[in-house]
């Protein structure tokens, strides 16, 4: 099958790859670009751990055809930190013990970033809503909700 040339912005950098028709964005990111931060959980939209931002909007990369991001901006967790400095959300996740096995963490952070980018002072209910497409097996969600609220209030609030 003929491959299609695809160009888009990956965490602010221009990338160009060749994809087979039907390749999903998660596979393109992990296998063709080598960005392992979006995880494969279910491959069918049920778990949220593959979440990425496309032009600032949250999308499930396992359900997104790679070709649809041509010319657009894709942000993953790989681009969230500033050099060696953790993003405030990452700091807050660490401080609030919001990760155990860590498998859901990339999706949770991405969902939280999408929320805070458009609503810097969310209520608890808005945080719950924002992460409700993401499954976590370990934490019971409470520490994750607390971490997002703490990051929103500048890291001052303690769980």
């Amino acid at each position, binding site marked *: 099958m003929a491959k299609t040339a695809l160009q888009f912005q990956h965490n602010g950098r221009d990338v160009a790859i060749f994809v087979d028709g039907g390749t999903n964005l998660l596979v393109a990111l992990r296998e063709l670009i080598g960005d392992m931060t979006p995880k494969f959980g279910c491959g069918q939209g049920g778990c949220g751990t593959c979440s990425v931002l496309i032009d600032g909007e949250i999308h499930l990369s396992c359900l997104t055809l790679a070709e649809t991001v041509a010319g657009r901006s894709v942000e993953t967790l790989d681009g969230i930190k500033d050099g060696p400095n953790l993003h405030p959300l990452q700091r807050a996740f660490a401080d609030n013990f919001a990760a155990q096995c860590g498998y859901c963490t990339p999706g949770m952070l991405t969902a939280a970033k999408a929320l805070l980018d458009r609503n810097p002072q969310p209520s608890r209910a808005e945080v719950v809503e924002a992460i*409700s497409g993401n499954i976590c097996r*370990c934490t019971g969600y409470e520490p994750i909700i607390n971490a997002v609220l703490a990051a929103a209030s500048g890291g001052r609030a303690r769980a």
Partner: protein
Amino acid sequence: MTRHRGRGIASVNYPIGMNLGGDPSQALVHSNPSGKFTVALSSIDLGQGMKSVTRQICAETLGVPVEDVYVDTADSDTGPHCMGSFASRGTHRVGNAVMAAAREARGVMMEAAAEELEVNAADLETDGRGNIHVRGAPHRSISTKDVAIAAQFKQGKTISGRGIFLVPLSDVDPETGEMSPATCYAHACLVAEVEVDDETGEVAMIRMDSAYELGRALNPRLVEQQLVGGAWMGVSHALYETPEPYYPEPVHGPRDFVEYLMPGPGDICPHDIAVLERPAPDGPFGAKGPGEMCANPVLPAVANAIFNAVGVRIDDLPITPEKVLRAIKAQGGARPQPRR
């Protein structure tokens, strides 16, 4: 349609690790020429914090800063045998093995330091900051790094230790059949408050209040993390998760996260936790284990709360809306029990 509130309570007596004796785990500890230490385990940290807690136990036993200890886990090619991460056994079993290994390594480290300082090893102590000095004479001191270098390159000693923890077999009394199946018990008590909708059979968690007694909490934030997440898992087992949800045939079982249900962030409830510490005589620094027991009391407490709310006794998990509704119908309507 009415929503009925109910409250249920359950208590747990939880034996740590596998019962009836045995249940071994091993650890190896060695120093590197940098004066840092490596703990080799094949035990697995799934996110519960086994790496952190064994690191603390090793550092505390050796008398060195926690930053100077590295824990290498989860590889049975490079680490000594472990029965596994289950039954709340990690902190207790693996921790004890690490403690034994670190104690042996500390013995060699003190001997090597004594040789360098030309004193008796029994007169030395560690300051917990990476130095070893003569008791009462802190200026007669050597860093653990210099000891490690001297042991390796001059004295020809390996600063290392081996540890295993094995629970003694309990004999059965031939007369009475009595035995002690476990050596270490943790305890918990949990009150669950639920709201049951008598038209849909749905059960909503309102709140949980619990007390967990788990020996010394070696890392209080990790313990809290275990209790919060574990209780959520208990709710999930009580009300949601099953491989055979609605039909007797496994082929009708869930295939994905859309059908295999778990409570989401919107389904959780406030949970007030009290941690009680009664150090275990045979635990590392008195620790028991906060693992599996976090989830256990939730299931009976929720079942009791549902009985209290609508008078139906469901003894088949998970307690799905369908089961609650059928039971309410069978008894001709909700029968709220006296509030407790």
